[in-house]
């Protein structure tokens, strides 16, 4: 069954992402993997294929043909389709030089973040599958994403967030309805920096 597994390096090459990103995906369960007796990670090839397939589907949806990488990438993770549409229209109305990438749950969020290395992440907390809490904890546990600004936009109150284990200190928390003008100010500040 050796052929069904690949190394971290092979997975990184096939997926076109850094080794650290593959490690993040393995730790958070996006990629399914085992550790050998020697402590090396072996990744399930089918699990790598799944991500490549998802990417192909996403691209055929004509989100972004890529090319010259834009200076600023913003990833939004939100499960409510109407709100995602709202993010797209609002961000477009800012008329800023940035690329917007969206995902509808924590798993997909981690994949998009690994692929696009964004400068900023805006995430919901209550989501089916992997929720925002787990996604953010995985991200903050990885050294590669420590410079990425994380903003949480949630319907949960402070007490409920604390009840569910809280969030890392450097994560900004905003309450729904989505405060778009504040988000815009944050993005402009990052762009100017």
């Amino acid at each position: 069954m050796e052929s069904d597994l690949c190394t971290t390096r092979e997975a990184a090459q096939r997926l076109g992402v850094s080794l650290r990103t593959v490690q993040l995906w393995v730790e958070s369960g996006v990629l399914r993997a085992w550790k050998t007796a020697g402590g090396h990670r072996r990744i399930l090839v089918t699990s790598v294929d799944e991500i490549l397939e998802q990417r192909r589907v996403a691209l055929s949806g004509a989100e972004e043909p890529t090319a010259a990488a834009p200076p600023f990438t913003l990833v939004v993770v939100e499960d409510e389709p109407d709100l995602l549409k709202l993010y797209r229209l609002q961000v477009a109305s800012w008329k800023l030089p940035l690329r917007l990438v969206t995902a509808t749950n924590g798993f997909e969020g981690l994949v998009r973040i690994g692929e696009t290395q964004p400068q900023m992440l805006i995430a919901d907390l209550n989501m089916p599958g992997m929720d925002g809490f787990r996604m953010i904890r995985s991200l903050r546990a990885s050294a590669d994403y420590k410079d990425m600004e994380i903003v949480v936009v949630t319907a949960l109150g402070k007490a409920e967030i604390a009840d569910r284990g809280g969030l890392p200190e450097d994560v900004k928390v905003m309450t729904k309805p989505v405060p778009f003008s504040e988000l815009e100010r944050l993005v402009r500040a990052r762009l100017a920096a």
Partner: protein
Amino acid sequence: MTSSAKAEKPSRGNAEMLLAESRTRYKAIFETVVDGIITIDESGRIDAFNPAAERIFGYTPDEVIGRNVSMLMPEPDRSAHDGYLANYLQTGRAGVIGIGREVTGRRKDGSTFQMDLAVAEENIAGRRRFNGIVRDISAQHQARERLQRFSSEMQAIFTLSPDGFVALDERERVTYANPAFLALTGMAIGTLQGAGEDDLDRRLATLCEPEHELAPSVAMPDGASDVLHLARPRPAVLKRSVRRIQGEGGRNLGRVLYFRDITSEMELHRMKSEFLATAAHELRTPLASIIGFAELLMSQDYDAETRRDLLETIHRQSSNLAGLVNELLDLARIEARAGKDFNIRVQALLPIIDATVRHLMVPGDPRKVTLKLASSLPPAAVDADKLEQALLNVLANAYKYSPNGGAIELATLTRQGEGGPQVGIAVTDHGIGMTADVAARVGERFYRADHAGGIPGAGLGLSLVKEILDIHRGELQIETRPGEGATVTLWLPALPMPE
């Protein structure tokens, strides 16, 4: 000098003086001592009665001197006393004399009291007399009785208390554990009595959930409390408090541990905060869309098609919000009024079912409800409007959760329930169904059988049905399997058929 000479050589006058002094001293004692002193002769006649005895019995010396001492006793001693005395004089076997005991005295006013009686016998020149020293102990006696009463009351309270109590002595050994504590922990009193506090801690620790380790009570300061999460003998959350018992002058008399079962409080607290979190999420999500799209429409110049699309989204989300707010208010009203708004009267159910089905309109779904009604059905005591609302919710669910069609059937049934005969209205669909785990939770507020599957709704419909049935003392029954549809039955208590 002269006085010392007199002391060395006592004269007759000196002896008389000493005797007089001794008498004076005796008289002073006799008159001032707090104990009553009563002297009687061999026949039982009183010949001395001191002021303390006057106070105790309420007689003056004139009233008692020369009379039989038995007047100071109630029956049966009163009649028997001459016999006691004669018996002693004859046999020398004493009941009281030289021993002292607790006996009952009788006052002048006829009331009785407990007293300590000591009797000394004196024999002067062949004449025997008896000195009785009497102390009124009715106050102590009452105090002892109060104490006994108090401790049996405490015993009853501890035995009946639903909260657990453990008492430890000053050497930190268990002296008492009440039945509630034994029931909460499954411990046996036999193995607990005399056990050390550290041993008690060890045994409690083995009952606790591994992720909630027990802090030893030995280390808890006075008045402190903490929370125990028991996994055995049944899962429970207990609040434990410690109180030091202090005697006079702060002397340590040990400690009492108090255990209160707060499992249901915790569960209620959890449900409340879960409800709040979900309500906040469900209310804020449509609001976020409405406000956000409205802002866009105000600030951006979109083409007519985009504008229309955004307005449609705003409208859809506003309708969701309105539906949610209505359902929440309905639920809150029913709960707060506990059925007081219900106009419950005995009536036939078929007309209500008929009206409900006729009122039912599902936009874009041509299916009609297939009725399988019994020809006659027992009446029930119901609020027609509320039952219609419950039935409408169930029917709406049947449409919603069978998006690919299939018959929707409504049948009436009867059965013998636990509390008597019941009449049921069963709605069956052939839609997506659900697992048993999901079915068990559908009555919970905001619980959605299909959260990601795109079927709209806030998860309040069946909560409302359940609430309405509760007020009718009915039951909600759900039979379902994933992919095989569901049968939801509203059971109501049936009344006898009219003649």
